[in-house]
């Protein structure tokens, strides 16, 4: 009896000893901040940064975009093939994969996810990205691990779109809480935190065969105040900051250079535009200025982008030429250079368009003094300073600019409902690499064609040309052909200046010294895109 008990104890100890090395790789808790509560935990409905962070950490996708190489890599799909007409994609799925609750993963789950995503009543931004033409996709489950999806029209960059599609379980009673990603949602306290635990059934292993992720848990503290976020980082209470402000970045770099990362120009751009909508309650002469290509080009030339990058962003930004940042290696049009600062050239253009300067004030041909207001969102210090710099630069050529800051709902109302504004300064957040994500911005019929949205027919020939090129690139499947079309769109935008692109902010981030495996990049999520291979060492993070 005693011998049997001893044997059992010995066996248990042996098992523990064998498991110990494996367990020791599950290391610690990573903490960082979300700047708002997630609006949804349904991965198909994600439309905000906080929900996107949770989806990235918990969702399992068929393919994953390597944020460093910007190339697709296999995940839950071991192979995939897109048809030559860009309408059909076939996936071969990984075998013996289980959801976090233990339910098996297979082609039926992918079919269920795609059917849910493409439900027209869902109005999912991700689903709309796949919707290139009328009709519903045909989903064929051709085996337990094989699925083919045929769309009614070609979908440009089809395979890359699957980077965002987190697969749901068709059978699990937990619904979207059953996940295939490295972490699983364990707790959520609104306004406080989102707590994610390691997914015990995560399929991925490291090169030594050890189960991933290494981390035990991730705690996402809801923290709106960026100043407090930085203070907490310095105290060692959090280990990562994404998209850190330039001013805070410099403060951090001065104190702890090893923890501050500047990955170069991000995908985001800051731009201003003039309201050209016929519905705008503006005097006809002002609409006339705003619709004048020479006027927009002159304004663009009168703005000193270099100074803006230096003074507003502490050199953590670069002058922008167009909608695509140099960080987007494939789609960036390297032939385009930012409009150089040249007030004399600006005045020449304005004179050509019938404007004249009297006693230091610019007047149009009808004798109206040129003055307008720029609206922007309140609470964004960088944007308020950019507006002040534009005010100063345009003052030098006799244009009086006033600055109006509004909270976001009021600003959206003016941009989309009343059109009661003259010029607007905002930023465009580019979440995807592919220009298809900007279709609604460039098509003249688009709701996000901000300078003159929802046109029945293109108001100008060059907008008609952009419509044609955008549709052509969306239906072409050859990447180089698509690039040619979109390069031309960028050139027209550069010539016509409907958006006056100002700067591309740099992708600034902070990673504590005790975090191993982080490789900050420009693409979101900048600091934790390799979350499954990240570890926390025992070194103190706080300074």
């Amino acid at each position, binding site marked *: 009896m005693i011998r049997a008990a001893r044997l059992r104890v010995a066996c248990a100890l042996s098992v523990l000893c064998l498991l110990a090395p494996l367990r020791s790789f599950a290391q610690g808790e990573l903490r960082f901040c979300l700047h708002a*509560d997630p*609006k*949804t935990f349904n991965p198909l409905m994600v*439309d*905000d940064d906080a929900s996107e962070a949770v989806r990235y950490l918990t969702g399992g996708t068929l393919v994953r975009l390597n944020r460093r190489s910007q190339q697709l890599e296999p995940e839950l799909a071991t192979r995939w093939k897109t048809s030559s007409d860009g309408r059909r994609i076939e996936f071969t799925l990984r075998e013996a994969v289980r959801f976090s609750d233990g339910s098996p993963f297979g082609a039926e789950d992918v079919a269920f996810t795609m059917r849910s995503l493409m439900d*027209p009543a869902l*109005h*999912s*931004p*991700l689903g*709309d*990205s796949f*919707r290139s033409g009328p009709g519903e996709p045909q989903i064929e489950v051709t085996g337990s691990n094989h699925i083919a999806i045929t769309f009614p029209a070609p979908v440009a960059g089809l395979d890359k779109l699957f980077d965002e599609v987190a697969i749901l379980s068709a059978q699990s009673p937990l619904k979207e809480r059953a996940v295939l990603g490295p972490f699983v949602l364990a707790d959520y*306290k*609104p*306004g*406080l935190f989102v707590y994610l635990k390691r997914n015990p059934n995560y399929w991925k292993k490291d090169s030594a065969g050890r189960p991933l992720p290494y981390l035990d848990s991730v705690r996402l503290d*809801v*923290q*709106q*105040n960026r100043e*407090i976020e930085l*203070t907490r980082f310095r105290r060692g209470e959090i280990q990562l900051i994404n998209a850190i402000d330039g001013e805070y970045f410099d403060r951090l770099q001065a104190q702890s250079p090893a923890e501050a990362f500047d990955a170069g120009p991000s995908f985001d751009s800051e731009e201003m535009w003039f309201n050209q909508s016929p519905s705008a309650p503006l005097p006809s002469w002002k609409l006339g200025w705003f619709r004048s290509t020479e006027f927009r080009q002159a304004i663009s030339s009168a703005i000193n982008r270099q100074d803006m990058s230096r003074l507003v962003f502490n050199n953590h930004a670069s002058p922008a030429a167009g909608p695509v940042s140099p960080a987007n290696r494939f789609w960036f049009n390297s032939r385009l250079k930012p409009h150089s600062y040249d007030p004399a050239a600006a005045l020449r253009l304005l004179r050509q368009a019938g404007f004249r300067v009297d006693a230091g004030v610019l007047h149009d041909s009808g004798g109206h003094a040129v003055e307008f207001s720029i609206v922007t969102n309140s609470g964004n210090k960088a944007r308020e300073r950019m507006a002040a710099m534009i005010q100063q630069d345009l003052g030098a050529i006799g244009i009086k600019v006033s600055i109006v800051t*509004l*909270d*976001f*709902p*009021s*600003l*959206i*109302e003016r*941009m*989309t*409902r009343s059109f009661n504004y003259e010029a607007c300064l905002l930023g*465009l957040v580019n*979440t*995807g690499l592919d220009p298809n*994500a*900007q*279709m*609604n*911005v460039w098509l003249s*019929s*688009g*709701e*996000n064609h901000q300078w003159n949205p*929802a046109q029945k027919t293109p108001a100008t020939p060059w907008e008609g040309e952009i419509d044609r090129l955008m549709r052509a690139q969306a239906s072409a499947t050859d990447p180089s052909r698509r690039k040619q079309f979109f390069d031309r769109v960028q050139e027209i935008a550069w010539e016509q200046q409907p958006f006056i692109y100002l700067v591309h902010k740099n992708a600034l981030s902070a990673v504590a010294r005790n975090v191993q495996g982080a490789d900050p990049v420009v693409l979101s999520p900048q600091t934790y895109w390799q979350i499954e291979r990240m570890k926390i060492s025992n070194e103190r993070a706080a300074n």
Partner: protein
Amino acid sequence: MSVVAQRILRAACIRLLAAAAVVLLAGLAGATLVRFAPGFGTDERELDSRLSSESISALRAHNARDANVLVFYARYLGGITHGDFGMSRTFPQPISQLVKERAPATIRNIGYGLAMAWSLALALTLTATAAQKPAADIVFSAAAGALISLPATVIGLLAVIARKPASFAIAAALFPLLYRYARNVVQSEWERPWIMAARARGIGKARTLLRHVLCASAPQLLALAGVSLNMAFGAALPVEVIADSPGIGQLAWQAALGRDLPLLVTVTGIVAAITLLGNAAATLAQQALQPEQA
């Protein structure tokens, strides 16, 4: 039941009915203000370039469903009778759940804040009254004056920098108001002839203060206690935002930013109810202590 008790009960019933009416009106006024605030019915998602025109139209139609404020309010009140406060627009959760989750943080912040502010204000009041020295008065009044000149948001920021909790900031915002009022009340009682007579008969300072002056000041201090609850709630709103304390104040701020009509109406109702109940409790307590004045 005594005449006094009947009078208090009647007064309580009348106040309760008046409070219910005021809360309902406050809710309607709040709803109207939000409805006609710029940006009502808009949604940041409208700027998502991935959304199709159909999805944006659907989003706008969904957000415009509360455009008629009277219809909204009638539906909202109908829901309340079934215990349903509706869904928040900012947070996709039932409002009752949001309030339930956030209330403990605010109750804790306000509770500790009030306790700290009252303790400090009373301690300094009694010290200054007992001392009757200009130097003590000057020091305490200067401290209170300095704090009273700071907005609650600045106090909240200082508390964050000093790593102090939100309750500390609430206490710092309340203390100067409580101290100045309590000091005036206690000092005026201290100068009354019967107190001076008691002192002349050799009753000690401490006993005079604690047994006589404080008792005589109690009705006014109780009234102040009722008002201080409202003041604490008022201070909690900005402090919770600055200190990122997940309470009702932060919820109200986020609701205002998101033009979240049902959530804002609920929070308005809660603020109105707390204000009225605080005042009513103070008045009733005053009536109970001074029935002859009631």
